């Protein structure tokens, strides 16, 4: 009798890993996106709305923009949703994506210690602020991870005419981490850093840091959504992915985006163009 029991449990134990690992077979798409949209809580808000509408589950793999692009290039995702225009254009041009659509825009802000040692408080020209930080020099934490935020930060240094790389290890610290980890580091080091407003609003460890430089053309942060090219990767769920994209840029989707609030403030401004893949007017 004991033998029968043992055999039964062994058989059950063998089957269990299979069912644990098996996918659910539900309709779903995989979206490669960035940590900023995940950290701000945007996806947690908007995806249930989409699902209620269409019954399609959206699985978001939230990594840095650079990694998201690579994921999509390998065909491991169906849709790409990131925030670095030049990379997105290149992605489409190389044939990995079908078309880039504007979805929403928010802005970056430079945050820093409450006492603002570099004196950039209130400046709207981000390049000038960057120059002041380098001149002080005040500690600055960079994501250093090839993300959209990181690429934007590098643009600022270029515009300011500063070679921040050369100072890496001194006042310029590269963490190679996501936005949250970088903010934690900046808070602990009492340093400046560049962050998207969405993540900042949702960040719970502000520890005396505050927004010091905002507004301004250079700090705009546009998001684009692209369908991964099924011609390149035949198993991409093109039909479902297209439904998702169409919903995002539709009036309903745009309204949903506009209704997402963090701490009472609207986090992202919807800006889907009716046609074409142009960057929004500043």
């Amino acid at each position, binding site marked *: 009798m004991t033998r029968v029991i043992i055999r039964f449990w062994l058989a059950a134990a063998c089957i269990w890993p299979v069912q644990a*690992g098996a996918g659910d077979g539900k309709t779903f798409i995989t979206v490669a996106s960035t940590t900023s949209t995940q950290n701000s809580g945007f996806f947690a808000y908007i995806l249930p709305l989409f699902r209620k509408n269409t019954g399609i589950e959206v699985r978001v793999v*939230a990594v840095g923009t650079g990694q998201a692009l690579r994921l999509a290039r*390998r065909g*491991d995702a169906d849709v790409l949703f990131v925030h670095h225009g030049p990379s997105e254009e290149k992605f489409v041009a190389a044939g990995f994506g079908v078309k880039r659509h504007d979805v929403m825009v928010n802005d970056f802000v430079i945050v820093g210690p409450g006492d603002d040692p570099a004196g950039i408080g209130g400046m709207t020209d981000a390049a000038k602020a960057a120059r002041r930080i380098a001149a002080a020099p005040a500690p600055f934490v960079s994501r250093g991870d090839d993300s959209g935020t990181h690429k934007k930060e590098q643009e600022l240094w270029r515009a300011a005419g500063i070679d921040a790389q050369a100072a890496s290890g001194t006042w310029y610290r590269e963490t190679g981490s996501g936005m*949250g980890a970088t903010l934690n580091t900046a808070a602990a080091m009492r340093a400046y850093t560049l962050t998207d407003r969405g993540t900042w609003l949702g960040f719970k460890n502000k520890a005396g840091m505050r927004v010091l430089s905002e507004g301004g053309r250079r700090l705009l942060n546009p998001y684009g959504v692209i369908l991964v090219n099924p011609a390149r990767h035949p*198993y991409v769920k093109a039909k479902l992915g297209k439904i998702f994209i169409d919903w995002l840029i539709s009036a309903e989707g745009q309204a949903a985006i506009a209704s997402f609030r963090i701490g009472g403030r609207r986090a992202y401004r919807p800006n889907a163009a009716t046609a074409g893949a142009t960057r929004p007017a500043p």
Partner: protein
Amino acid sequence: MPEFGAAFAEALSLVIRLDRDLAEIVWLSLEVSLAAVFLATLIGMPLGAAVALFHFPGRKAVIVGVNALMGLPPVVVGLIVYLSLSRAGPFGVFGMLFTPAALIAAQVLLVFPIIAALTRQVVEDLWAEYSDQLRSFGAGPGRALTALLWDGRFTLLTAVLAGFGRASAEVGAVMIVGGNIDHVTRVMTTAIALEVRKGDLALALGLGVILMALSLIVNGAAFLIKDTVETRYG
């Protein structure tokens, strides 16, 4: 340190509320790690025993290799599994990436060297002690294998628990191959990492407390079982 107080408060409130998200994450973590340990034992234990008992050319290299694999960084394993399961990779057709199956695969790779290496040591020592008598009964290493594994069961159980510990504490590999997708591949460790990234340190620490409590429960249960069986069967 206010964080610790806040952490325990958070942890407690989550557990008391029977927070559904938390329950889902805990259940998935257990499922994945237990399944991984089970498969790793299935692979690693006979492998370790075979290496202990049979002398084949290159045996020493295999022993050193398996021992070295114990120290493989989880994030490297994650990368290897990701590249293998990626659509562009050799096993892409199975579509396992970003599913719990990928998590189990990565954890199996991390855990089986521990179980294999420890099994090898246990079986080797036991065979050194038993071989004369067992061979006198006409049992060669092959026939003695199961008897040796059974005899070493208490030490081997510790090896399995060590494997479970490594599997459930791991975050690097499961993050890469699972994508930390909400409701699909979010386990305790990746959830903690996410909350840290979002800056909610108290919640992260609270989840950490729960994870440690789970580990305590599993190990406590194993110890009780071992103790009862040991006193009964010696």
